[in-house]
């Protein structure tokens, strides 16, 4: 295992907040009784991803269902153990810390890395009032804080996320809140721990289109105020652009477990370098009607291939309109293009033998 990196055990100030180094997450598919003695199918959810997250940073992950963005997000905040590679928090390997091999306690890391789920309805206990849901984490982490102090803290946070009067909202049950309000409670719960990173996993996708900007603005205000970094997962490029641009961060495009393009939102959207980013851009509805009528999708197939058996070479070659023979054989690596912009496509290299290769015929 390459994970044990003893030299890093203590970390120093120059270490990024979170460093993801060549991470791979593979799941074994459950087998039925008859398949007991067969090799289990392995789902390659995340493969060979390296990315850093700094203080007060935003990384927006985009991609279609099943591309591994949620798995990568959960790996970043230490909820999912990678099968290969390492994740470190301020220079300490998270999973080594859990095993007790560094100077930090795992509980500290755990409370510094928080999550907001997609469905606010099912992430709140329906039988508990909001105030009880929010008291629990404080009671667990700060057993000496009095009930009165807890209440004050909860009310001020609820007010901070725009739920006034706080006393009224705190005494409600989740079913008495709208979807947007539930999501605010989830955000307040994450903020209770003064986290360094919040993973917002499709946190606004279940909200009405008209409420999304409001919720994103709230998260961005809090990013500044609490100095929190966000990993923002979305399948919608325009939401990712809004969030990453305002949060002064980057967009990362994922396809079948690989990070295929990372860059500042304006560069990535105005000048996409990976054909898959182009596809996502095409898929994003546009109110400028001429642009939205732009005919056929820039891809050859609608359905994403099975991650149990991903295509050889560049994983996008089965759908890519630009694919050539070499794309079937070789997997392109992420290549720096300047300004913090990286893409994994042979086409970014004008000297690559891709240009002499034959186009793929379906």
């Amino acid at each position: 295992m390459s994970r044990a990196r003893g030299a890093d055990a203590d970390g120093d100030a120059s270490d990024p907040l979170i460093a993801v180094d060549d991470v791979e997450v593979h799941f074994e598919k459950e087998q039925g009784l008859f398949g007991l003695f067969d090799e289990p199918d392995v789902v390659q959810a995340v493969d060979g991803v390296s990315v850093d997250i700094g203080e007060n940073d935003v990384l927006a992950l985009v991609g279609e269902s099943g591309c591994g963005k949620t798995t990568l997000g959960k790996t970043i905040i230490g909820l999912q153990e990678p099968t290969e590679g390492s994740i470190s928090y301020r220079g300490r390997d998270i999973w080594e810390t859990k095993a007790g091999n560094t100077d930090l306690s795992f509980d500290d890391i755990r409370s510094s890395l928080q999550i907001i789920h997609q469905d606010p309805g099912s992430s709140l206990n329906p039988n508990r009032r909001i105030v009880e849901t929010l008291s629990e984490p404080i009671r667990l982490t700060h057993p000496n804080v009095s009930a009165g102090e807890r209440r004050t803290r909860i009310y001020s946070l609820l007010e901070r996320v725009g739920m006034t009067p706080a006393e009224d909202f705190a005494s409600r049950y989740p079913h008495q809140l709208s979807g947007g309000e539930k999501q605010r409670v989830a955000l307040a719960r994450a903020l209770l721990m003064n986290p360094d990173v919040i993973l917002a996993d499709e946190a606004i996708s279940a909200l009405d289109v008209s409420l999304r900007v409001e919720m994103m603005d709230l998260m961005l205000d809090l990013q500044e105020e609490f100095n929190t970094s966000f990993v923002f997962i979305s399948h919608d490029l325009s939401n990712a652009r809004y969030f990453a641009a305002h949060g002064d961060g980057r967009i990362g495009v994922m396809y079948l477990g690989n990070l295929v393009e990372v860059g500042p939102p304006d560069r990535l959207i105005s000048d996409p370098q990976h054909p898959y980013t182009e596809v996502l851009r095409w898929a994003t509805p546009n109110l400028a009607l001429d642009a939205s009528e732009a005919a056929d999708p820039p891809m050859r197939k609608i359905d994403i291939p099975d991650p149990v058996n991903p295509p050889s070479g560049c994983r996008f070659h089965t759908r890519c309109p630009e694919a050539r023979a070499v794309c079937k054989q070789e997997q392109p690596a992420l290549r720096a293009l300047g300004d913090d912009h990286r893409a994994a496509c042979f086409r970014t290299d004008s000297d690559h033998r891709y240009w002499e290769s034959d186009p793929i015929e379906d």
Partner: protein
Amino acid sequence: MTTTSDRLHRAGDGVSDPILEVKNASVTYDDGDTYVLDDVTFSIERNEILGVVGESGSGKSMLASALLDAIPAPGHLSGEVLYHPDPDTTVDVLEFSDAELNEFRWAEVSMVFQGAMSSFNPTMKVGAHFEDTLKAHDRSVPEGLEFAREILSDLYLDPDRVLDSYPHELSGGMQQRALIALSLLLEPEVLVMDEPTAALDLLMQRSILLLLEDIKEKYDVTMVFITHDLPLVASLADRMAVMYAFELVEAGPRDQLINDSSHPYTRALLNSTPNIDAPLEDMRPIPGKSPAPVNVPAGCSYADRCPLATETCRESDPAFEPVEAGHTVACHHWERAAEAIELTFGEAAAVGGDAEGDPQ
């Protein structure tokens, strides 16, 4: 059998050959205390794609159910729903017997709901759903299945694989496409879709929308597409209607409704949408909340959130007024909406910003 009010109405909304007409439809619960659809009147042109847009809880799903007289009990539907199988025939949907209604749903007007996973029976293969539907409507199963295969291939699905799979063996996008194929099985005249793509990622949503356009051409079907996602349906619809607080507030041809919308709510909704090309600083949420179905304000229900609201708005409910041919709006101050609320995207932003910059 055209009455005066009919003609007036037709002149307003630009529909000359309606396939479905809804007149003064209201849905009430609690013995009339709670309105979840409030006096809605509109028509659907034969062979068009109508996009109906509204936020959660604006009554748009009730509108869809009303078209099929399928309001969940104990809701009560009043008003008229008229169906014209051809331009000279009129049938009243609300007068149907149970047997007639059964035939009307699926064979004349069929519906696709949000969340294919809950529409399919998880213990039955997808193919069995097609067979059951054919049998329930006394159609020939082999012929029907042949047709099903054709639609499935049109939707870029492998018919053998899909028909022989259990629902959970298909991806969300495949399930949703299989459900659309099932809804087209009896060759309906009208397909009503309520958030048909909501649980899917954007790429699949856009792909399905493209396929729907092809399906509409090939099978001559009229489509009603109901969603909260305005930019999504804007890429597909011929005409659009906007709902707010259980009422229709604006309807018109797609381009006019997007680029020249006249209701302050429509304009605010357009500006609140994250758009890939719009300047970031111009995207704004709509302040305030939509009203609950009880105690709907006496006048215009948007008045509390509207920057143009005056005493008139709070006192009297605005009637529909024609903006131009086919484009109608229910607002007392629609003439001032364009200059008061500038649109922040595309060409409209440029035009609105230059020409109407000076405030009154």
